[in-house]
C-alpha cells in the first residue's frame, strides 16, 4: 500500500511527477454480469441449495478455479435497496457451502453503491448491503470469524458512466477471497 503524506510547500514538483506517472490504463475490473445468469431461469434457479446450480462451481474441476471457491463472486442490488434478490440465492448458497466446508477459509464482503448521492451516505449504504450478505451467510451456518465486511461506497465503481446500466453494475457486493 503506497501512501505518502507531504508537507505543504514541498510538493509542487513532486505533484507534477505524480500526475505524469499516473495516467495508467485500466486494471482488472470486477463486476461482470455473470451473477445475472441466475436470472435467466427465473424462479427455477432458486430450487435446491446444492452445488452444481447455475453460477456456482464444481469442486475445483475447471481451469483457473482455486480449490472450489465458487466462480461467481458478485451479486447485484436494486437502487436504494439492500435486499438480496432471489435470483442470487443460489450464488449465496454456493459460497455458504464453500465456507462451511472450509472452516479455515475467510472472505471479505465488499459493499458498493452506484455514484448517485453523497459519498459518506453511500459508504454506509454499501456497508448495509455487505451486512445483508453477511447475515445471510451466517444464517446458512457460516462462522462469523470467516466473514469480514468492508464498504467502498461509490469509491470503486466496476464501470464508469452515468447510465442506468452502469449504475446497475456498480450496486454490488463482491466476495473477495
Amino acid at each position, binding site marked *: 500500500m503506497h501512501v505518502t503524506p507531504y508537507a*505543504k510547500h514541498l510538493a509542487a514538483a513532486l505533484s507534477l511527477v505524480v*500526475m505524469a506517472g499516473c495516467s*495508467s490504463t485500466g486494471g482488472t475490473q470486477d463486476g461482470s454480469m455473470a451473477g445475472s445468469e441466475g436470472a435467466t431461469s427465473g424462479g427455477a434457479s432458486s430450487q435446491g441449495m446444492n452445488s452444481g446450480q447455475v453460477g456456482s462451481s464444481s469442486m475445483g474441476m475447471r481451469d483457473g478455479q482455486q480449490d472450489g471457491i465458487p466462480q461467481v463472486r458478485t451479486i447485484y442490488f436494486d437502487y436504494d435497496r439492500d435486499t438480496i434478490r432471489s435470483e442470487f440465492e443460489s450464488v449465496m448458497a454456493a459460497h455458504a457451502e464453500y465456507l462451511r466446508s472450509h472452516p479455515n477459509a475467510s472472505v471479505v464482503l465488499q459493499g458498493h453503491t452506484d455514484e448517485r448521492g453523497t459519498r459518506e451516505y453511500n459508504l454506509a449504504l454499501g456497508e448495509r448491503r455487505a451486512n445483508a450478505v453477511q447475515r445471510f451467510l451466517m444464517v446458512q451456518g457460516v462462522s462469523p470469524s470467516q466473514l469480514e465486511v468492508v464498504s467502498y461506497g461509490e469509491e470503486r465503481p466496476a464501470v464508469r458512466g452515468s447510465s442506468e446500466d452502469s449504475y446497475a453494475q456498480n450496486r454490488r457486493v463482491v466476495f473477495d477471497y
Partner: protein
Amino acid sequence: MKRYSSLWCGMLLMMIASLAHADLTIEITQGSDRATPIAVVPFAEQGAQLPTDIASVIANDLERSGQFKPLSRDNLIATPSASSEVNYRDWRAVDADYLVVGKVGTDGSIQYELMDVYGQERMLGKVINLAGPDQSRAAAHRISDEIFEAITGIRGAFSTQIAYVTAQGVGENIQYGLQVADADGYNSQQILSSDEPILSPDWSPDGQKLAYVSFETGRPAIYIQNLASSQRVRASSFEGINGAPAWSPDGRKLAMSLSKDGQPEIYVMDIGAGSFQRLTRSDAIDTEPSWAPDGQSLVFTSDRSGGPQLYRYDMASGEAKRLTFTGNYNSRGRFAPDGETLFMIHRGSQGFQVAKQDMETGRLITLTDSRADESPSVAPNGTMVIFATQQGGKGVLSAVSADGKASFRLPAAQGDVREPAWSPFLN
C-alpha cells in the same frame, strides 16, 4: 505610464500558470445580471517586474465572486495609476461604477486606490509592502479582499484555500491524491498520495490541519494531518466505517460517523483526551455530521424516517429534530456562517443538486442546473458554495453564489476532482 499589451499579458499569465502549477483552471459559467461593473486598470510598474499581473488577479477574483463584472482591458478608456490622474467622466462613459488603479514601486511595494465613479470620490487607498516577489499573488488577493469589503460590507474570501481529492486512472489502478490550492485553483500542493480512496477532507478552524478519511489500511479510517509539517495521526480506526470527520468551531472536538456498534452513528471525539462520546442511537444510518457555527448543535444525515433527511442534534438536550421535509432525499448539510441558511444535496426531479433551506421559514430552493452534485462546502464569508459535480464524464469542482445567480467551474487538467472543502479565513 506604461500600457500592457494583451499579448504580453497573455504570455506573462502562461508563464505564471506553469510556475504556479495550476492544476485547476477556472471557467466562469454564469455571471449575475446584477453584477456591479468595475474597471480594474493594469497597475503601472515603476521598477522590477513582479511575476504577477496584480490587476488581472484582482479582476478575476471579483468576477468569480459573481458580484462584480470587470470591464475587459479593451474597454479601458484610460490607464491612470493614481487617483490624481483620474478623470471621472471617462469612467462614467464606459458605465463603470467603481475604478481600481495602482502602481508597483521600485522597492516592490504595491499602492492601490479604489474610486467611486458616480460619487466621484476616492474610497480607499493603501500601500502593501511585499516580503518578496513571490508574495505578489497573495498581495493581489488581499487587495481583492479589501475592495470587496469596502463595497459590499462583507469580508472577502479571496485569500482562502480549498482542499480537494483527485483521482486518476481506471478500475484497480486509480491513484488518489489529497491537494490544497488557493481558492482560485492556483498553487496546488499535494498533501497525500495513495493507491486507496481518500474522502471527506475537513479543515480545522485554525486552518492548520486537515482531517480526512483514508482507505490505506484497507478500511476507512480518519486521519488528522498538520499541513505545514505533514505529520499526521490516525484519529479513529475502529471496526467498520470511520467516516465524515467534522471539526467543532472551537477546534477541540471532531464529530464523525462510526459503525462499530452495528450501524453508522454520530460520535464526537475529544481530540485532546482521545475519548469518544456517542450521540445517536437508532437502527438507521446516521452520518455526515457538521457543526452549527455556535457549536451548540450539529446537523447530520439520517435515514431513520425511511430515506436520508437532515436532522439537528442539540448538544445540551441530546435531542435530534428533523429539519428537512421537502422531497425524499436530503443529505450532507452544511450551515452558512450566520447559521440562518442550511446548504445540502437535495434529490429532485432534476437529479442531485445543491440546495439551500432557510432555517426560519423551512423553504428550500435548488441552486444549480446540474444533475449529479455532491459535497457542498461553504465559503467562510457565506457568499459562495463550492461542490463536486460531473461535466463531460469527468468529475469537476464547481461553485455557485449563495443566491444561485453566478457560478464558475474548476476542472482539473487530468482525471477527476471531487470532495472540495473550503478553508476558514486564513489571514
